[in-house]
């Protein structure tokens, strides 16, 4: 009996540590790209794992660590935003509302077409400038490579809302890239004139 309990405990510990090894990078990346602060991102990853550990201590069984970890991290990031009060999260959420989105925005293929026109490397630089609402879904979709359903479960919005946000986020990114390109072009011309 004693051996069995030991087994159980070490089993839990082993699974938990394995999850840490597996996901610490991904979680850190997500956190870092969301809040653009390296130290804070590390702290958030740490807090995520301690929170999950507390759950396990309370006796909750975790079948699949990945979504659970993302969920906790996402909540912590939202808390972080609230603390910072850079922008009212509520106001940000209200902007979107339960918009159903147009047909175009709901279609996966138009997302692909749209994405094909965007330079990923430039997009990476400009992600920071996007409202978090869009940054969140674009990161989850293209960096963390979660499916629409997983994202929908994670941030508790319908898949339609997710699609619309991705679509609009990408559009915004493209606009920003184009604006930046134009700006760079003007700079270059100005230099040439000189």
């Amino acid at each position, binding site marked *: 009996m004693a051996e069995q309990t030991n087994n*159980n405990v070490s089993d839990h510990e082993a699974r938990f540590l394995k999850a840490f090894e597996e996901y610490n990078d991904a979680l850190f990346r997500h956190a870092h790209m969301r809040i653009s602060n390296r130290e804070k991102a590390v702290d958030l*990853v*740490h807090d995520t794992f301690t929170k999950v550990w507390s759950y396990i201590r309370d006796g909750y069984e975790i079948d699949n660590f990945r979504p659970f970890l993302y969920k906790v991290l996402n909540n912590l990031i939202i808390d972080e935003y609230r603390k910072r009060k850079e922008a009212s999260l509520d106001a940000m959420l209200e902007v979107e509302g339960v918009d159903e989105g147009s047909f175009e925005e709901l279609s996966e293929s138009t997302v692909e077409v749209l994405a094909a026109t965007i330079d990923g490397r430039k997009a990476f630089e400009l992600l920071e400038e996007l409202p978090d609402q869009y940054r969140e879904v674009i990161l989850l979709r293209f960096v963390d490579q979660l499916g629409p359903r997983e994202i929908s479960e994670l941030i508790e919005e319908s898949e339609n809302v997710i699609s619309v946000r991705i679509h609009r986020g990408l559009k915004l990114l493209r606009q920003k890239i184009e604006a930046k390109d134009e700006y760079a072009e003007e700079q270059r011309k100005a230099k040439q004139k000189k």
Partner: protein
Amino acid sequence: MKRFSEQLHKKAMTVKLQAAEKNELRERLVSYMEYHPLPAELKTVPEKNTLASKVPIFAEPFRVVTLPFSIIFKSSAVAAALVLIVIPFVAEKAVPGDTLYAVKVGFNEGLRSTLTFDSYQKVEWETKMLNRRIAEVHLLESEGRLTDEIEAEVAEAVKTHTENAQREIEALRTEDADAATIASIAFDTTLEVQSNSLRNGEGVDVVEGDLEAFSSRGSSLIAGVIDKSRSESEAKNASTTLPSYDKLMARVEQNTTRIYELLDSIKQTTDSTQLVDVTRRIEDIERSIQAVIEQSDEDGVQARKDLVGILQRTQKLIVFVTELDISNTVDIETLVPVVMTEAEELAVTERMTNELNTKLEKIELVLATMKEGDVKAKVKFAVNSITESSVKMGESTEFTNFEAIAKDALVLANDTITLLEQNKYNLNQSIESETASSTEAVGGRGTTTASSTIETPVVESVSTERGTSMEWE
């Protein structure tokens, strides 16, 4: 998209924990785990699921089901429309045995019953439902789908409706005796018409074949129920007084208005002979009303009685026009006989008298040439009776009275002629010279039945075409 997502992903992959950061993080975590070891009770819990089943919500915190509200609202609106509008609408056409029949009886009719508050309207509605039940039986019968079960069911439903109606009439009686009486007149009339139609259908069905003969049992079962409640309600109404003149008149006027409306609505779809039929009845009713109005000053009670009669006629006419099945099974003449104007009565009187006289002359001519014997004695007796009758006919002032005597006399005359023909007496030879001057009725129908010979020309034309014109679409 591949390019974009690959590029983005690749770029993102450069963001990662440095080895030192990772080690530090792991150490922090491990020490946290050491300070917060797993509790003892968890250790005793065997693997998986036991806890999960105790706290299912927290055990799988990511099975968050997001409800797409817009879709739910839309689909529930569609579902509600389906349940509240489409299904009841379709159910209206259901007959016993159909899936939607329960919706028709339970929901549609239940709803209308609930929305009817006035006792008088309730009686009307119960009557309507009764008509519907019987119409269903007719429909099933015509499709050969009527089973014992259904017929018992419908008989039960008919019984319930009549009982309900009678109860409402009783309830109404405590408030407004006149209205109750009028309601019960209307209700009884409907019962009478329905019972007529069911019985008529029976006769036809038996002739038509086994299937219909079988189904006619259903009709008779239901007809039995109706007759029973008719006799009950008649017994109840026997003690009641006549409703007041004004109320009766108001009701009659309502009914006539209703009939005119109905007539308008069927004008497009019904063929002309049927319309002529109905129009004729309306004219009759209008004339009767006029007569009652004239009479009301002199004899109030008689006027009221007459009005009750008119009310019944209007009611029958309404049922006849509204209930398709009835017009298919029952003759309008049996329901609402034609009431003749004085001119028409005069014409009929003249025609019958002429006919009788012609026949009498014929018989007498032959009688003069006959040898003594049984036949002669019979013919002689007949001639005497006919002569007596014709005297009475001349004396009688009431048309109905005259009509009855004339009919009898004509039957007797016809029988006598048949008897003579059977005994090889040639009737025509002796009266050939007279045929030209006699009325056309004689030439055509020496042996037709008395009832058809007295019909007015209008009705005759209708009755000959009736076979093809019964469809009221």
